[in-house]
């Protein structure tokens, strides 16, 4: 591991982390204005042009507000719980490729922080560590509503994690590899959703439950359980939970795009558009990498908008409906998908 | 230079800490967690052996140990829950109904 490798790795990490952390305020703004648009009202529009500086105002508010810690809360676990939520959500992005390779000073840099050959397993593993943030937050708050919300939320997350894992087996069988870089390369002809539509549907629905977003957000529903597991959390700690939720949304959208929608493969038509505008696009040029990153960002943006759209459109599931849906409907559908995929591979349709 | 024996010594240390927990704690759940720690120390030595003798059988063994540990944790915790419903305590000294 030479110094140059180390510098390139650090640069990639810094780039990805800064893009992620700066997407969160943009997402907050899109959510507030987008929800206002759906609900036929204006959103925040006073702070900057079109309310664009609203997230900045939110950050300043979070920094200066009082950070309460309840008297009987557990001294060690209460501050630790938001970190347990934030770190897995941030770290999972390391395995997701956002572009092909770049050639710089005859050094091939792949636009992915870590090309782990167990990419999908790594993401599932760290996704399952996110449950601790919720459990420990609920328990350490020493508050009935928190603990109820935490128990419900973690039971929901565990059940839908099973759906997530089971729905990933179909694409795994089709692609034959765990490594996300290989998977994106294999989608050069047709995007993955053409081969695995059922897996995409179950995966996307489970993604909503994993991120605790409506229609699965009973645990943190505002009208139901005060605020669920983050009732007792004040300014900066609440901001960490908030950030963790949006980061988790971004990661799951990026994973959906990578597995089912071609990852950084160019949106059809983009290449001819760029060539029409006069850019010379040849393999491993910088322009191609930029186009790939742009395609990736646009696709992730579409899915993030779908997340926000669904949130402000549907009502909430009741808890028993939610668990019945996960266990009695989605898991059999995911298993059926595995069976159908096996049949298709055996009969050489795929 | 970290070699074979380093991993095995680490496994031995973890095993001893697990034994420490099982023998000297009174709380049932912490005893159970110490048992899991002992199982993990054995897993570590199996993986080290698998690497240094270049055979994948060690890793398969670890796979099965992890699965069996999951099974044991589930059933054990179910037993603890039903015990707790009877006796309202998790101290093992109190569970002495069958004592002669």
């Amino acid at each position, binding site marked *: 591991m030479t110094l140059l490798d180390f510098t390139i790795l650090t640069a990639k990490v810094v780039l990805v982390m800064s893009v992620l952390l700066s997407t969160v305020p943009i997402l907050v703004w899109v959510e507030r204005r987008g929800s206002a648009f759906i609900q036929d009202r204006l959103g925040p529009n006073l702070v900057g042009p079109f309310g664009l500086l609203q997230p900045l105002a939110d950050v300043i508010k979070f920094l200066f507000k009082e950070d309460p810690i309840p008297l009987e809360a557990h001294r060690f676990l209460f501050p630790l719980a938001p970190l347990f939520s934030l770190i897995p959500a941030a770290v999972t992005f390391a395995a997701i490729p956002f572009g092909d390779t770049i050639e710089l000073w005859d050094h091939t840099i792949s636009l992915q922080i870590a090309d782990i050959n167990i990419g999908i397993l790594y993401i599932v593993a760290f996704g399952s560590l996110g449950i601790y943030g919720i459990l420990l937050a609920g328990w350490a708050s020493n508050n009935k509503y928190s603990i109820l919300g935490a*128990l419900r939320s973690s039971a929901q997350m565990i059940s839908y994690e099973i759906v997530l894992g089971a729905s990933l087996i179909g694409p795994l069988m089709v692609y034959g590899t765990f490594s996300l870089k290989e998977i994106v390369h294999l989608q050069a002809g047709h995007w993955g959703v053409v081969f695995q539509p059922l897996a995409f549907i179950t995966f996307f629905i489970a993604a909503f439950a994993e991120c605790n977003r409506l229609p699965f957000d009973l645990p943190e529903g505002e009208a139901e359980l005060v605020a669920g597991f983050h009732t007792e959390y004040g300014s900066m700690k609440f901001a960490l939970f908030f950030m963790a939720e949006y980061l988790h949304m971004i990661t799951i959208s990026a994973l959906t795009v990578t597995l089912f929608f071609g990852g950084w493969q160019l949106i059809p038509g983009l290449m001819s558009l760029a060539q029409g505008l006069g850019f010379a696009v040849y393999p491993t040029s910088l322009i191609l990498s930029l186009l790939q990153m742009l395609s990736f960002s646009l696709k992730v943006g579409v899915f993030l908008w779908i997340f926000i759209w669904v949130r402000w459109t549907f009502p909430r599931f009741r808890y028993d409906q939610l668990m019945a849906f996960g266990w009695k409907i989605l898991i059999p559908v995911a298993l059926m998908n595995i069976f159908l995929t096996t049949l298709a591979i055996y009969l050489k349709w795929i | 230079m970290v070699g074979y024996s380093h991993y095995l010594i680490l496994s*031995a240390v973890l095993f001893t800490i697990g034994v420490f927990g099982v023998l000297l704690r009174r709380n049932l759940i912490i005893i159970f967690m110490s048992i899991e720690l002992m199982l993990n120390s054995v897993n570590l030595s199996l993986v080290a052996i698998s*690497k240094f003798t270049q055979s994948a059988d060690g890793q398969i063994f670890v796979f099965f140990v992890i*699965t069996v540990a999951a099974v044991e944790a589930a059933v054990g915790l179910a037993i603890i829950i039903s015990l707790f419903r009877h006796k309202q305590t998790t101290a093992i000294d109190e569970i002495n109904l069958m004592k002669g």
Partner: protein
Amino acid sequence: MWHNIIFWILSILCVGCALGVVWQRNPVVSAVFLVGSFVALAGLYLNLNAPFLAAIQIIIYAGAIMVLFVFVMMLLDLHHPLDLYFRFTKPKLPKYIVLGLFIWLLCTLILATAFPLAIPDKAQGFTVAQVAILLFSKYAFPFELTSLLLLIALVGGVVLAKKK
């Protein structure tokens, strides 16, 4: 060189978290320390070129078994009784001496064995494909038995913990 540094950092973390499991009075904090220990162990598996097992360790142990532990602790509302034996029995010294002797015995036995000299850095890790081929060919029967065992655990857990 990196392997050594990572080994020392992760092993100190692992032993520290294991000691934390055993020393804490509160079971939930013990569980958190145990999760830390498992994640450190997963890092050690990665150091030993076993990526599949590292991921499985985190998914199953840290992500499912320990969540089950924390769930049970939250459902049971434990008023942690004073661990009288551990803290307040005298004499304290003999138990530590005995455990120290145990560790010393194990370490001496390990260091005295002449393990065949392997060349660690050239040792190949095992990819998921190799592990899977072995699992489904040579060890197919235990694999199927394990699935039966999991079914038994599922039924047993429900039967034992059900309210009458």
